[in-house]
């Protein structure tokens, strides 16, 4: 009667309700679900790690040793470096792990240095160079807003180079321009934040609907039982605190 599939559906439903119960109050069942989650997640990452090791190194080396030893022998270097990571548990040889981390951070940083000047800087500049006049008033207004908010935001992020005004002195024109751009920047960014925040509500509600979909299954009774258990756990938790 009770197969692994039914048990699985039960567990699946229970995990969701127990985790949701945290939104109301921390309780023992949430703690259980959380620890189960962390355990499987940690196991899952190790499995993913083994899987990529298998795919990149072990499988080519076993399945076609000829090509591996001629073209991909250098993969043994990162394997050796990876094993060095275990040196961090040693009091004396902890620094050996740095060799592996060094390769990692250098490749990451090097790869980022290639794409970032183009994607994050040149592309953004070219996208901001827009005509601020023309026959279409709506387009012109949009362009003004785009350029001003972008420049304003950049001004807001100036940390060490900016005009200052001496105590009691009249603010210079540069300072006035700086201040107004600064405020355009921060107000413009606030509009963006408000819009993004509100826009996210939609996706989050969508997620709740996805969860709801789990429960239109034959084993829906399992969810009910799990929910009742969670409610009991919450009430017990409150009673114990008092």
């Amino acid at each position, binding site marked *: 009667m009770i197969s692994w599939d039914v048990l699985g559906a039960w567990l699946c439903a229970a995990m969701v309700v127990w985790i949701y119960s945290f939104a109301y109050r921390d309780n023992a069942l949430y703690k259980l679900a959380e620890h189960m989650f962390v355990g499987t997640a940690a196991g899952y990452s190790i499995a993913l790690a083994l899987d990529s090791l298998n795919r990149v190194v072990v499988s080519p080396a076993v399945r076609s040793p000829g090509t591996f030893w001629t073209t991909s022998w250098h993969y043994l270097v990162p394997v050796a470096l990876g094993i060095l990571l275990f040196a961090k548990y040693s009091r004396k040889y902890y620094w050996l792990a740095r060799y592996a981390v060094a390769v990692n951070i250098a490749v990451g940083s090097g790869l980022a240095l290639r794409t970032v000047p183009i994607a994050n800087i040149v592309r953004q500049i070219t996208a901001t160079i827009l005509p601020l006049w023309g026959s279409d008033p709506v387009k012109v207004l949009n362009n003004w807003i785009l350029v001003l908010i972008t420049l304003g935001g950049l001004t807001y992020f100036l940390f060490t180079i900016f005009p200052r005004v001496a105590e009691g002195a009249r603010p210079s024109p540069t300072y006035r321009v700086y201040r107004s751009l600064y405020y355009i920047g921060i107000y413009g960014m606030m509009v963006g934040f408000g819009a993004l925040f509100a826009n*996210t509500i939609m996706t989050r509600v969508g997620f709740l609907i996805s969860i709801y979909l789990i429960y239109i299954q034959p084993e829906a009774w399992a969810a009910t039982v799990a929910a009742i258990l969670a409610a009991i756990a919450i009430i017990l938790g409150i009673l114990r605190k008092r």
Partner: protein
Amino acid sequence: MKTARGLLIPVVVIALVAILSGVGWALRIQLYSPKTPFSAFLILVGLLTAGYFFMTEARAGKSVPVRRIPAFEAVEEAVARSVEMGRPVHMTFGFGTISSSMAPQFIAGLGVLSHVARLCGKYGAKLVATLGVPEAIATTEEIIREGYYSAGRPELFDPTYNVRYLTDQQFAYASAVQATLIRENVGANIVVGPFWAESLIFMEAGNMVNAFQIAGTARETQIPFFVLVADYSFIGEEIFAAGALASGDKETLASIRGQDVGKLLTIVLVILGVLTLLAGLKLVDALNWAWKVG
């Protein structure tokens, strides 16, 4: 004299690039990649040399004025308050790895951590740092140890309590962090680093225990949650400045000036581009120009 020496390497590098490009162009050599805009390379070299120049200046003893960052100043208040209430301070910096483009934000988080750790040592607060990056466990331990030892409170340092590597899987990490916030009943919740959807989970869990919350990230989509929900927030790039300020290292702070040069350059290029459009010139084409011979 010292400034002159600081200028030497930047000038040499720029001259080298200029001479190389000039000769290459004159001889019609395909010197640079035909796929990438040449301006990107120039901007990269320019910013690296500018940053290097400021760093040498700082080494020579020149200090840099920094704009007020309210959230940074609030960190001390947050730590002091939670000591008053007898509650621990919590800090987390995400699960973005150090081998990706999230590295700067992650390192900014570590910088803020060292500041928090020093303050915890000063006020005698218990610090709980949670993390989702296995490579950073040793670093985190070291930073917290340093914070407590430099303040003369080695007895507060207990690595299994202070440093908690939870897991690198996003939501398992998030679920464990929110539970930690509640169960430890933290008084201050400081969240700085690269964050994804888990940002709001941390903010709401912190709110459930009425913690004083300071948060910051440079990940565009998550900034709104921090700005709207936290008591104080670092908006975008402010975390880099805060990380540099917190590290207390003059040269690191000076390198932030290189970033400012980048922003000024962007402002100038945008204004120039818009103005030259008036004259019918297209700066965009110049910026997109790639080195192609023949």
